């Protein structure tokens, strides 16, 4: 099925997804939306890993193993991040990172 699709297509797609995710992480006002941006970036990385595995060394398992660890870390990151956001919301009634300035005196 990959006939005629160069590797660079996948890489450019992943780069675009990464940049969109980065914009989301940098520019959104809501902490949950920032987390969404981070998830998009992790997805972009995973596309790259699996594309490299398929095109450069499909007989080895290194790329797949890396992708699997990205999945695991993403799941852990999402659960802890959302727990932090909900805890912060309980205390300050806000999820805007610009207002989370309790440490600023």
């Amino acid at each position: 099925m990959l006939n005629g699709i160069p590797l660079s297509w996948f890489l450019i797609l992943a780069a675009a997804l990464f940049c969109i995710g980065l914009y989301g992480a940098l520019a959104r006002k809501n902490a949950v939306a920032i987390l969404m941006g981070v998830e998009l970036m992790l997805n972009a990385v995973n596309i790259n890993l699996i594309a490299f595995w398929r095109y450069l060394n499909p007989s080895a398992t290194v790329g797949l193993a890396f992708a699997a660890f990205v999945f695991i870390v993403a799941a852990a990151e999402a659960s802890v991040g959302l727990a932090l956001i909900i805890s912060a919301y309980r205390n300050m009634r806000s999820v805007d990172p610009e207002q989370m300035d309790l440490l600023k005196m």
Partner: protein
Amino acid sequence: MTFGQILFILFGLVTIIAAVMVVVRRNLFHAALFLVLSFFGVAALYVLLEAYFFAAAQVLVYVGAISILIIFAVMLTRGVMGGQSGNSQWREAAVICGILLVGLVGLLSPVAINFLGRNFGGLQWRIAGGAAGLPVVSEQILANLGMGFVDLNQYALPFVLSGVLILLAMVGAIWVARERHPAEVLAERKQIAAELAADAAAEAITTPEVAPTEQHAH
């Protein structure tokens, strides 16, 4: 144009457009749903790359778990969904991401681009199989991956560590987001208030000119 190319463009467009909607939609619930669509697009790309296990894992982990957590968080932090979608620095962020995107696309483009007298892109990858075309993915790859996870010479240590990470994340998430008893919270707040009052009193002694306004405010 081959069938594969059409599929790639289709799924790639779905992924990218959904991702753009994730970062620009003001309604966070809609943004989360577009995130799900984007995850599905990525899963379709994995199918295209013949990583079927990872396509199913993508649906299970990202769609079935992470996006549900995100939607749940959106629902729990309700009432803060409206307003502006970007923060005060969204223009700078857009410029940075735009420059990064243009640079990356230039670096990765299949044909060389001449910019300011230098050549960018046109990278030659050492594609497996060479001119004969991509080799078929072995049926055994999944079994090999599974064996690799328990093989001490391969990924046994990272695998165990990631298990520990998941466990710690679970315990940590439950601890951070636990529902605390109202009396406990009240006692803590009282203590903080008392400390603040003591601080203010101490400050009032050292800097008498601030004290009257503060007392007036109370």
